[in-house]
C-alpha cells in the first residue's frame, strides 16, 4: 500500500492553510481603507495605492503556502 501519496496530499492541504489568516487580514485592510475614504474622500487615490500595497505584501504569505503545496503535489508525488 502506497501511503506516501496520501501523506503528500495531507501535507499540501496543511500548507495551503497559510491563506486562512491572510483572507482575514486582507478583509480588515480593505474595511479600514473604506473607513478612511469615508473620513477623507479627497485622499482616495493615496489610500487606494497604500491599500493595494499592504494587501499585496500580506498576500505573499498565502502565495508561499500555495507554492509549497503545488511543489508537494506536482514535484514530489
Amino acid at each position: 500500500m502506497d501511503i506516501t501519496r496520501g501523506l503528500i496530499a495531507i501535507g499540501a492541504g496543511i500548507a495551503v492553510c497559510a491563506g486562512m489568516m491572510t483572507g482575514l487580514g486582507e478583509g480588515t485592510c480593505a474595511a479600514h481603507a473604506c473607513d478612511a475614504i469615508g473620513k477623507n474622500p479627497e485622499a482616495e487615490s493615496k489610500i487606494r495605492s497604500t491599500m493595494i500595497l499592504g494587501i499585496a505584501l500580506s498576500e505573499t504569505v498565502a502565495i508561499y503556502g500555495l507554492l509549497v503545496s503545488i511543489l508537494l503535489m506536482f514535484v514530489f508525488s
Partner: protein
Amino acid sequence: MEVTVQTDVYVIILITVILGIAIVLLSKKIDQADPLAKPTGIITPVLVGIQTIYKTVCDNVGTKYADALTPYVIVLWVYIFCSNIISLFGLSSPTANLSVTLLLAFITWVLIQITELKFQGLGGYLHSFLEPIPVMLPMNIFGKFSTMVSMSLRLFGNILCGGIMMQLIYSFTGYLSGLIVGLFTSAAPGTVFNFLAPVMAPLLHAYFDLFAGFIQTLVFVTLTIVLIGNDIPEDAKKA
C-alpha cells in the same frame, strides 16, 4: 547535449513581436497627429493611459526623475498585462514561468539598488547593511534579496494558480459532460465533447485571467514605483 526549448519562449517571442509592431504603428500615428487638434481614434486611450501612469510616477518619484522612470513603467505595464491575458487565446502565460517573473523583478531590484547607491553614496549604502546593529548583517543581506524573490513569486504564484484552476475547471466540466451523456447513451467517458465548458468557463476566465491579471500587473507596477520612490529623499524629488 540536448537543448530543450520551453514553449513559453515562443509565446514570449510572439508577445514581443505583437507589442513591437503595435508600438511602431502607434508612434508613427502619434507623430503624424496634429498636436493642437483634438486627439482622435486609437490615440485618445493611449494618451490617457500614458498621462495616468505619468501622474502616478510623479506622485511617488517626483517630477525630476519621472521622465526617466515612466518609459520603463509603461513597458512593464503593457508587457505584464499582455503576458497575463494571453491565456485567453489558448496559449500558456509566460508569467506562469518563474524565470520570466524573476527576470522582471531582477530589473526592478537593480533599479532600486542603483537609486539607493545614487542617493546614499557607496559608504551609506554599505553602512545600511550594519543598521541598526552590526549583528543584523546576515538579515539585512537577506532582506535586500527578499524584495526580488517576493515580487517575482507573487506574480508567478497568482498567474500559475489561475492557470491550474482553469485546468481543473476544464477537466471537471469534461468529466461532468461525460457523466450527463453517459446517462442517456452508452458513450465511453472521455470521448464526449466537453459541452459544459463554454457555459461555465467564460466567467471564470474573466476572473482568473482578466481580473487577477490586471490586479497583479497593478501590484507589480505599483510596488516598482513605490519602492524606487521610497529611496529618493523628499528634497531631491523637486525639479
